[in-house]
């Protein structure tokens, strides 16, 4: 039995698509919450709706969990169908425990070869008793017993998740869970049963897609245009009924070309608007994003990244849309690119992006990814920034002279009128224009407007939110791990391990990628050796930071594509190699 209870426990439930593995994982996460613990539930599914493969990957413990672990402690296989498709996402070793249904097919060779301890439990047979349960619920009970989740928490979790489906469903689930709990041999338990908390402090249970939706609502978004795409659709589905409750509206568009232009129309009308998409949709939206930049119409596009290029791997995570977000627009088009750092931070970063887009009258792309968007966490609630107001424009006032929508002001931001306001009418234009908005191809107008649109962003004080910085501080650090987006979780966990071995480590997780806060990044790095960590094949962040001369010459890169999550051990190994490799320490 693992003695250090602070180390998160990694549990997987797998089965054919439709076997209920994902539901089992969701109930276990609810049980984690009921036991007063923190958890992260990732899902790995194939492209098929039914009959493919599905895995619920849960990691939980007494402290917040933000990334996948190095290994799997406990696997419950409802069956072995298509196990090879995700076997490498569930690393087993001699210390792992595998619960296998003898009726679920032959044990895969790779599982046998791992040396993991195999315990046979007849999930399906136990479910077939008088209560008519389901095999996946028996697995919930057995996993819970061996992972130290108390039976009342498991039953509470099932009631919470399935309560909406009626009493009979909850009763059947409870039967299965009890049966599984009793089948598990207490001597094999990996953890002692966690004591039930006397009082539960309020915690969020939400996905990154839901958190991003919440951030949008907090910042005043009241119009959303939506075209479905994996893995962003849930954000739009979460928003649809909630926008309605708040007097907002969601319009399903015919394609992504339409959705980005619809939100431009809304913002032109003065109503903060947003859309969400993934790589292929982002490609289609780029022309519209450029229009928002040129016409100075504030919009926000949340891009939930998946494996690319082209259709790529729609159901699995990668950070490879960074280049498209940074460089995809034609012409010189200064805009904002932000990245959410964890599930709860999807709310903060999205809200910040909406407020910035309105403050600076430009387009913002928020990068999330499948690992944030479709994973569900039990985490601390994250309050909206203190005193934060809904997104607002710099209003225009009718004066004596004609109104100049694109007036060349000191900070580059011009007062913005909206339809309905008399004396302030103008035509917004994607054609280059003069201060009034009238189209112009004159060199002086082009230069003045290019300068103005750049100055808005270059001179703005973004404050401390540009990055999440943790650790030794620039004067003391021997190593600085630089990352962005969802890789913050794995980098922070790796840094903690490196520190426990005596190394002074700083982590810098970039939330604002464009405009790059280069001076602040220099200051945060100091004289430390640098390792840039990201989940792409092309080392997109590393190349970007180098192009911007933001890194010391000896900086190293750890860039690996999806779909496998980066692990803390991988980051520790790369950091150790980078230091040993002669980088200045």
């Amino acid at each position, binding site marked *: 039995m693992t003695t250090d209870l602070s180390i998160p426990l990694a549990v997987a439930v797998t089965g054919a698509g439709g076997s209920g593995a994902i539901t089992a994982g969701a109930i276990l996460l609810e049980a984690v919450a009921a036991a007063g613990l923190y958890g992260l539930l990732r899902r790995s599914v194939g492209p098929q709706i039914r009959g493919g493969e599905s895995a619920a990957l849960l990691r939980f413990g007494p402290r917040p969990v933000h990334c996948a672990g190095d290994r799997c402690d406990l696997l419950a296989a409802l069956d072995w169908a298509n196990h090879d498709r995700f076997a490498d996402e569930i690393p087993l070793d001699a210390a792992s425990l595998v619960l296998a249904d003898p009726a679920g097919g032959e044990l895969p060779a790779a599982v046998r070869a791992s040396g993991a301890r195999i315990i046979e439990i007849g999930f399906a047979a136990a479910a077939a008793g008088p209560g008519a349960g389901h095999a996946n619920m028996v697995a919930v009970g057995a996993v819970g017993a061996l992972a130290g989740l108390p039976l009342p928490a498991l039953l509470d979790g099932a009631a919470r998740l399935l309560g909406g489906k009626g009493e009979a469903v909850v009763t059947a689930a409870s039967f299965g869970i009890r049966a599984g709990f009793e089948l598990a041999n207490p001597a094999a338990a990996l953890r002692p049963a966690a004591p039930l908390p006397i009082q539960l402090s309020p915690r969020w249970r939400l996905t990154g897609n839901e958190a991003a939706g919440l951030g949008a609502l907090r910042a005043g978004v009241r*119009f959303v245009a939506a075209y479905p795409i994996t893995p962003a659709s849930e954000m739009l589905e979460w928003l649809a009924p909630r926008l309605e409750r708040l007097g907002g509206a969601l319009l399903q568009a015919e394609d992504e070309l339409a959705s980005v232009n619809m939100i431009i129309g809304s913002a032109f009308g003065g109503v903060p608007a947003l859309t969400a998409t993934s790589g292929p949709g982002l490609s289609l939206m780029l022309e519209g994003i450029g229009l928002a930049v040129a016409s100075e119409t504030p919009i926000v596009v949340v891009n939930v990244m998946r494996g690319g290029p082209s259709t790529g791997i729609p159901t699995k995570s990668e950070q490879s849309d960074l280049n498209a977000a940074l460089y995809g627009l034609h012409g010189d088009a200064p805009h904002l690119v932000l990245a959410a750092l964890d599930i709860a931070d999807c709310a903060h970063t999205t809200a910040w992006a909406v407020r910035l887009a309105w403050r600076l009258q430009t387009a913002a792309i928020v990068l999330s990814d499948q690992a944030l968007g479709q994973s569900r966490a039990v985490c601390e609630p994250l309050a909206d920034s203190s005193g934060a107001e809904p997104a607002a424009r710099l209003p225009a006032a009718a004066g004596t002279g004609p109104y100049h929508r694109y007036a060349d002001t000191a900070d580059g931001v011009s007062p913005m009128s909206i339809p309905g306001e008399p004396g302030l009418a103008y035509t917004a234009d994607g054609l280059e224009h003069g201060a009034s908005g009238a189209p112009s191809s004159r060199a002086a107008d082009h230069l003045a407007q290019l300068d103005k649109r750049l100055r808005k962003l270059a001179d703005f004080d973004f404050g401390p939110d540009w990055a999440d910085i943790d650790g030794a501080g620039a004067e003391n650090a021997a190593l600085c791990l630089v990352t962005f987006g969802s890789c913050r979780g794995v980098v922070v966990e790796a840094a903690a391990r490196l520190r426990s071995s005596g190394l002074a480590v700083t982590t810098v997780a970039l939330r604002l990628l464009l405009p790059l806060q280069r001076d602040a990044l220099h200051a945060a790095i100091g004289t430390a050796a640098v390792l840039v960590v990201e989940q792409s094949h092309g080392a997109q962040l590393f190349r970007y930071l180098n192009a911007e001369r933001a890194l010391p010459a000896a900086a190293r890169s750890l860039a690996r594509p999806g779909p496998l999550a980066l692990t803390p051990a991988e980051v520790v190994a790369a950091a150790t190699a980078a230091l040993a490799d002669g980088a200045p320490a």
Partner: protein
Amino acid sequence: MTQTADPAAPHRDAIPSLRAKDYKSDIKPVWCPGCGHFGVLAALTKTLAYLDIAPEQAAVVSGIGCSSRLPAYLSGYGFHGVHGRALPVASGLKAARPDLTVIAAGGDGDGFSIGGNHFLHACRRNQDLTYIVMDNEVYGMTKGQASPTTPPDWAKSKLTPHGTGMPRFKPAAIALAAGAGFVARGFAGDPNGLTELLAAAIQHPGFAFVHVLSPCRTYRPEQQDWKTEVHPCVLGPAHDIAHAAELLQRDDGLALGILYEQRFPVYADGVSADAAGRLADIEAELCR
């Protein structure tokens, strides 16, 4: 529903009666002398004056092309976006601001080729929008290429020296098939008749499509003959879709008037000030 974007926005106390010229801006059009689009601009300003719509309460949205320059020539609010996307911008604006009169405008290439998908779905979505397509059967701004409505044997474009060989896009019939409830055809050379059609279109509850024959003097000089060829649609307007389909099957493309009018439920989902819900309740649900 009233607009909620900015309660502090100034309001016009009383709308004075305005004349057509009050709806024109002081920007000189880029159009060639004799271009049909001047007639559409004149008809639209007359229409807005006739309907007594304050300039700031109307927004005209366009894409790219000669005709899409229209918004800047008006004194109200306008949005000159990218090629083919006038309708999505108009849809988003109308959903966000149901209080506004929203008009999308553009040409045949913009609306039927690059923007063809949006045309289909705007017809069936049936928001309360007006869509004016100034059809001259040619790409003018890029100097004379065949558009979807160009006859198949028109061989004067360097791009298609043997003609397109493709049957023409039939805007009115396609609008009907896609679910539009108001389909009309006007002629730029008949500003009074066009004004009546535009007024009816704006007043129609739901999506209203006005197909305007608007001659291109430069690349399609033969269209000057349209003024003797157009004729009233004696059999219209149809109020029954089967009747309308039959009428449009026999249509020579030059019949003017309301071709089809039928009231369908208007897509009314939009931003509203009178919501009962509170964000705090949504936040609380996340903690359960």
